[in-house]
C-alpha cells in the first residue's frame, strides 16, 4: 500500500514539473511569435518612437521612501524624458531620512497651496511643493502609509488623464514614455500598459541615464538578469496578445487615471499593489462588460537596481510571493467565472497553479525525491526523470530567455556578455532557483499568517546619486 502511494507521489511530482516547464515552453512559443510580430512592426514603423503630436499628457508619479541617495538623479532623469507634455509628481511617503530636504534644495521647491482631489483615500498630506525651476515638477509630502497609499495621493494630485507609476530608485530610458503610450494611441480600449524592467547593476549610469549596459560582478545580480529576461520576455509578453497580462510592474506602468479611480485606486492592505490593481481592473471590466485592453510592451525599458545580498533578495522575493498570493486569493472569483475570459480561464489558473502554490509543490517535490532516494524509496530512474524535468527543462527555459533577448533588442551585445549569461542560465538551476523556492515559500507563510506589511527596505549602492 505504502509502495503504491510512494510510486504515485513520484509520478505526481514528475508530472507537475513536466507540466510546469511544458506550459512555460508553450508560453515561450507564444512570446516568440508575439515578439517577432512586434519587432517586425517596429522595423516597419521605424525604430525611433514616432511623435504624432496627439500624445496625451502624462503625470509621472514617483513614490519615495528613504530615497535620499538616488532621488536627485531619478528626478533629473525623469525631467529629461522625451515626451511632449508631462508632469512629475514625487510623493514623499513620510521618509525618515533627508529625501524631502534633498528635493527642496536640488529643485528649489516652495510650498504651494494646492487642494487635492479626494477621489481615492490616502494618509493625510502635510504639504505640497512646486519647483521654481521646473514648472512641471511638484512634490507631495504626506504621512507614511506605504507605496500604494503614496500612489493614491499621487493619483489625486495628478492633473493629466494618464499616469505613469515609476519607482524612485529606477531610471527610464529617454523614449520609454513615448513608447509605452503607443498602445493608447493605437487602440482606444487600452487602459493600462507596462514595459520591461531590466537590471542596471554593472551598467554605466551618467546624469540619470544609462549609457552602456553591462554585466555586474556580483553573481547574485547576474542570476537576476537571466531571471528578469525570463520573467518579462516570456512571462508577460506571451500573455499580452491574449489580453491576459496579470502583472504590470510597479516600477514602470502607464494607466488610465479615470479607470483606476473607478476601481478605487491602489489597495493599501497588500504588498503586491501593482498586481492586485491589474487583476482588479480585469475583473471590473469583465464583470461590467466594458471593452478594455491591458498591454505589455517589450521595449519601453525601465532600469532598476537589484539586491546584491542574500538577505535583501530573500526579503524581496518573499514580499513578491506574498503580493501574488494576496492578489490571486482576493480575486478568486475571476477564475472560471462566466465573464472571466482569458484572464479568468487561462491566466488566473496558470498563475495559481504554477506561481502561487507552485513553490510549495516544488519544495515538497525536491525534498521528497531527494530524501526518498537517500532512503531507497525512490529509484534511480525516477530521480533521473525528476531532475531532468526540473533542472534540464529549467535550463532550456532560461537559455530561451536569452534567445528572445538576442532576437529582439540585444541590450547585451558583446559576445563575452552573452556567454557569461549563458553560463548563468545554466548555473542558476543548481541552487539559485531552489533558494528562490524557499524564499517564496516563506512569502506564502507570511501571507497565510497575515504578517503586517511595510515598505521593502533595500540596501543600495547609491552610485546613481553621484551624477
Amino acid at each position, binding site marked *: 500500500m505504502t509502495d503504491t502511494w510512494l510510486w504515485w507521489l513520484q509520478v505526481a511530482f514528475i508530472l507537475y514539473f513536466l507540466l510546469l516547464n511544458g506550459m512555460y515552453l508553450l508560453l515561450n512559443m507564444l512570446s516568440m511569435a508575439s515578439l517577432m510580430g512586434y519587432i517586425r512592426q517596429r522595423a516597419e514603423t521605424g525604430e525611433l518612437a514616432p511623435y*504624432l503630436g496627439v500624445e496625451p499628457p502624462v503625470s509621472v508619479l514617483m513614490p519615495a521612501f528613504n530615497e535620499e541617495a538616488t532621488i536627485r538623479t531619478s528626478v533629473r532623469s525623469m525631467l529629461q524624458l522625451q515626451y511632449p507634455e508631462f508632469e512629475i509628481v514625487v510623493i514623499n511617503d513620510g521618509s525618515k531620512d533627508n529625501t524631502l530636504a534633498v528635493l527642496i534644495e536640488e529643485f528649489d521647491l516652495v510650498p504651494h497651496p494646492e487642494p487635492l482631489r479626494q477621489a481615492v483615500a490616502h494618509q493625510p498630506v502635510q504639504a505640497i511643493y512646486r519647483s521654481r525651476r521646473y514648472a512641471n515638477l511638484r512634490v507631495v509630502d504626506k504621512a507614511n502609509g506605504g507605496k500604494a497609499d503614496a500612489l493614491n495621493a499621487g493619483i489625486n494630485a495628478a492633473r493629466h488623464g494618464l499616469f505613469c507609476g515609476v519607482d524612485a530608485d529606477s531610471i527610464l530610458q529617454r523614449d520609454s514614455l513615448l513608447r509605452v503610450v503607443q498602445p493608447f494611441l493605437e487602440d482606444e480600449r487600452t487602459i493600462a500598459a507596462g514595459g520591461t524592467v531590466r537590471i542596471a547593476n554593472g551598467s554605466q549610469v551618467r546624469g540619470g541615464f544609462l549609457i552602456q549596459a553591462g554585466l555586474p560582478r556580483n553573481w547574485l545580480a547576474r542570476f537576476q538578469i537571466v531571471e528578469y529576461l525570463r520573467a518579462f520576455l516570456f512571462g508577460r509578453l506571451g500573455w499580452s496578445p491574449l489580453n491576459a497580462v496579470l502583472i504590470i510592474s510597479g516600477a514602470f506602468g502607464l494607466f488610465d487615471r479615470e479607470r483606476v479611480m473607478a476601481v478605487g485606486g491602489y489597495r493599501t492592505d497588500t504588498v503586491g499593489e501593482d498586481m492586485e490593481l491589474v487583476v482588479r481592473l480585469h475583473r471590473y471590466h469583465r464583470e461590467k462588460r466594458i471593452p478594455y485592453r491591458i498591454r505589455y510592451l517589450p521595449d519601453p525599458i525601465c532600469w532598476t537596481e537589484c539586491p546584491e545580498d542574500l538577505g535583501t533578495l530573500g526579503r524581496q522575493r518573499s514580499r513578491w510571493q506574498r503580493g501574488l498570493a494576496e492578489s490571486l486569493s482576493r480575486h478568486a472569483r475571476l477564475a472560471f467565472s462566466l465573464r472571466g475570459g482569458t484572464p479568468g480561464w487561462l491566466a488566473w489558473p496558470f498563475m495559481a497553479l504554477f506561481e502561487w502554490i507552485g513553490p510549495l509543490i516544488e519544495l515538497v517535490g525536491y525534498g521528497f525525491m531527494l530524501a526518498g532516494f537517500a532512503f531507497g524509496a525512490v529509484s534511480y530512474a525516477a530521480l*533521473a526523470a525528476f531532475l531532468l524535468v526540473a533542472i534540464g527543462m529549467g535550463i532550456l527555459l532560461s537559455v530561451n530567455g536569452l534567445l528572445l533577448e538576442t532576437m529582439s533588442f540585444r541590450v547585451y551585445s558583446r559576445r563575452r556578455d552573452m556567454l557569461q549569461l549563458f553560463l548563468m542560465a545554466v548555473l542558476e538551476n543548481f541552487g539559485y532557483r531552489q533558494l528562490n523556492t524557499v524564499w517564496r515559500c516563506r512569502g506564502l507563510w507570511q501571507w497565510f499568517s497575515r504578517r503586517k506589511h511595510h515598505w521593502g527596505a533595500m540596501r543600495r549602492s547609491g552610485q546613481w546619486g553621484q551624477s
Partner: protein
Amino acid sequence: MLSEWLARCPHWLCEASANAWAQLWPEDRMLQLALYCAFGLGALTVLVLLQVLLLGEVSRRRTVRRQQFNEQWRPFFALCSLSDELPPSHAPLPRRRQLWFLLQWNRTQLQLRGAARERMNRALIALGMDRQALILLRGRVRSKLIGLTCLRHLADPAHWQAVQPLLLSRNSIVALSAAQTLVAMDASKAMALILPAAVNRPDWALPRLISLCQQAGEQAVTTPLLIVLSSSEDPRRERLVPLLVQGDPRHAAPWARARLDEGAPAEYLQVALRCLCELGDPRDRHRLLRALQHEQDTVRLAALQALHKQARREDSELFLPLLSDSSWWVRQAAADSLAAMPGATLEGLQHMLEQVRDRYGRDALRRAIAEVRR
C-alpha cells in the same frame, strides 16, 4: 575508417572503456530513457546557444555594414540639402543597398525644413530613386512603408494613382501611412477619401485620425467631415464627431449650434462647445450660459472653457458661483478663469478669495492665484 581505428586500438584500452561505459550506462529501461532525454535536452540547449551566438554575430555584422553605409552617404545628403545641384561625385549605389539609401534619405528629410527638403527631393528624382520608391509599393509591408514615407516627402500629386489603392489595405499601418502620403499630396482630395473610409475602419484609432486631420489642416477637414456626419446612416460615424474640433470652427459652427439647440447627447455637446470655444463668437454666449447648467460635469466644463475664451471683466460674477460646483474639475477651471480674467489684479483676487464661502472653492482659487503669481 572507424573499424580500422578500432582494429588498431590496444586491447586493454578498448576493454577499459567498454567496462567504464557498462558501469555508467544503467540497465533500467526508464533510466536509459531519462538519460536519452537528458542528452536530447542538452543538445537542444547547446543548439539554442549556438543560435543565440549566430544571431548576435549576424546582427553585429549588419549593424557595422549599416553604419559604414550611413557614414559614406551622410556627406552626400548634407551637400544635397545645401546645394541646388546634385553633388558631382558620389559612391556607387548597388541595387541591394537602395533600400538603406531610401531609409537614410527618409531619416534626413525628417530633420530638414523648407528649401532644404525641396533640394533633397530634387536630388532623389535626379538619382532616379523615386521610381525605386514606387516599385517598393508592390513589395512586402516594410518595403511599402519605406516607399510610402519616401513619396510623402516628395508630395508629388503625380504619384496619387500609385498610392490610393493602399488606402484600402487591410493592414492598418499601411493604410494609415498611405493616408498620410495622400494628405501630403493633396489634403482636400485626400480627406474626402479618408473620412468616409474611416467610418468602416474601427482599426484606425482616433488619435491617428486626429493626427491626420492636423496634418491636413482645418480647411481640408471640415467639409468632408460634415458631409460624412450628415449623410451617412452608419452609427459608427459617431466615432468621428470629435474630429470636428480639428476643423474650421466657422464652418463647424452651424452644426455645433444645432446640436446645442436640440439638446444632443453629452459627447456631442462637448464637441460642439469646443468648436464654439475656438470660434469665440459673442453671439453664442446664451448657448454657453445654458450649457453651464447642464447636468453632466464634462459639458459644464467645456462650456466654462468656451466662456473663458471670450470672458469680459464683469464676467467674474458669472464664474464665482462655479467655485462651489459639485465637480472638482469645474471648480478648478472656474478658479483658473477667475485668476486669468482680463484686468485681474492680485489685490482684487485676494478680495475675491475672502468673499468665497465654499471651502473647496476657496482652496481652488487660492491655488489658481498662487499659480498666476509664479
